[in-house]
């Protein structure tokens, strides 16, 4: 839950931004981001909300890190599962219920 996932802002419509997360487009709320966001910026996502605009100098490193987390994602990798959960949690994501026994975000992975 405490992980944040970074993505690139593709478009902004009021308080919602379409954000690219490693090739997956999602809608993210901009209500609580720390400073104004424009197209092309990178933002950190937490439960469907941007919580920080990531300074451009940090973008490459942070993105590469998360590429790595996702790439290494194994079935029982809790960090990667949380990252997937963060992505799945975006308002634009499908809200299929992860009815599930694991009840961790990993259960949502296949949806």
């Amino acid at each position, binding site marked *: *839950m*405490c992980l*944040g996932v970074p993505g690139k802002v593709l478009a902004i419509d009021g308080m919602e931004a379409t954000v690219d997360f490693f090739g997956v487009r999602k809608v993210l709320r901009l209500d609580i981001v720390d400073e104004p966001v424009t197209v092309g910026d990178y933002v950190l996502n937490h439960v469907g909300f941007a919580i920080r605009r990531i300074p451009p100098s940090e973008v490459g490193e942070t*993105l590469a*890190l998360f590429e790595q987390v996702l790439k290494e994602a194994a079935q*029982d990798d809790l960090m990667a599962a949380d990252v997937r*959960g963060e992505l799945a949690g975006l308002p634009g994501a499908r809200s299929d219920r992860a009815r599930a026994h694991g009840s*961790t975000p990993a259960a949502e992975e296949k949806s």
Partner: protein
Amino acid sequence: MADPGLDELKFRDPARARALSAALAREVAAVGHEPVSVMHVCGSHEQSIARFGLRAVFPPGLQVVMGPGCPVCVTDLPEVDEAVALALAGHRVATYGDMVKVPGSARSLADAEAEGGKVDVVYSVQQAVELARTHPGEEVVFFASGFETTAVATAAVLLNGVPGNFSVLSAHKYVPPAMEVVAEMPGSHIEGFLAAGHAAAITGSAVFEPFAAKHRVPVVVAGFEPLDVLAALLKLVELIRGKRAEVANMYPRVVTREGNRPAQEKLWRVFQLVGGRWRGIAHIPDGNLRLRDEWAHLDARRRFSLDISGLHDRAPSGLAQRCICGEIMAGLKQPSDCELFGRECLPDSPVGACMVSSEGSCKIWHTYGGLPDLREVRR
């Protein structure tokens, strides 16, 4: 898209990790006593330490203890009972996934669902609001868990306006007061704290300054990559050695001293601090985030008359009485100290909340191989 070519090794580079580890060993030795005990207060830090096997490169004289860093784990039984009561009363309860299996006094939300209650897993409070819009004939209650970072999202949706059939049952928790309590707990000898990077992204590192001064302990804000954790520990032990009760920020790419002010403003417009029990740990003064009076109309505790007395008339099961999740969350014990760990208590059949949540210490240790003290192997 960044070249996946290998900048990432910046934060995972083995050579840098070895260098940090060696420096950490020198620094711990220079403190002059062993063990040097420090605590982190974030489940994601434990995930990182366990997943990357970092305890193997911690010097033997350094003890890194897990603190109350799992919001699901510290949700108190009566809070779960309230959600269960609402579900059993026919209302639709939406919550984050880990909350569904967390046991209440007698039942979890999963049990309530099995008995006919309506329970929905959401990944964002925004989805819970959508549920209220698509089910106008029902009351939708968002059972809200998480620390301040997550509470900010709850605050934002309320400030935006929500449908009349939507309300919030807040189990949100605020970390700094819990650090106060744990720092003074008898039996704990914590000499420094690692603070959680993403909570600090909201509150700012300055929030820890009064704590550091009052308790005479250093606090270092840390990120979640292996080198983030090692570098933050190195900084923390340096401060311990120098007897400097200061706050240092080792996660500047995300955290500033003043934090995210617009988010803080939203958080405190909606929530106020109230004392309450954190499961298994203690009563934490100012540890709970509850809706302010102005938001009473959206507070499930005030909208519904909740009677949870019938839900905890049964004593907890024998197994639950042997669960030491609370002592683990307080940093007094570790999962391998529990006789249930990996035997009666497993991720598929958890006895306590520490085995339910992906941020719970028991689930993390179970996933990454129990007590990952590889130093024994290396010697």
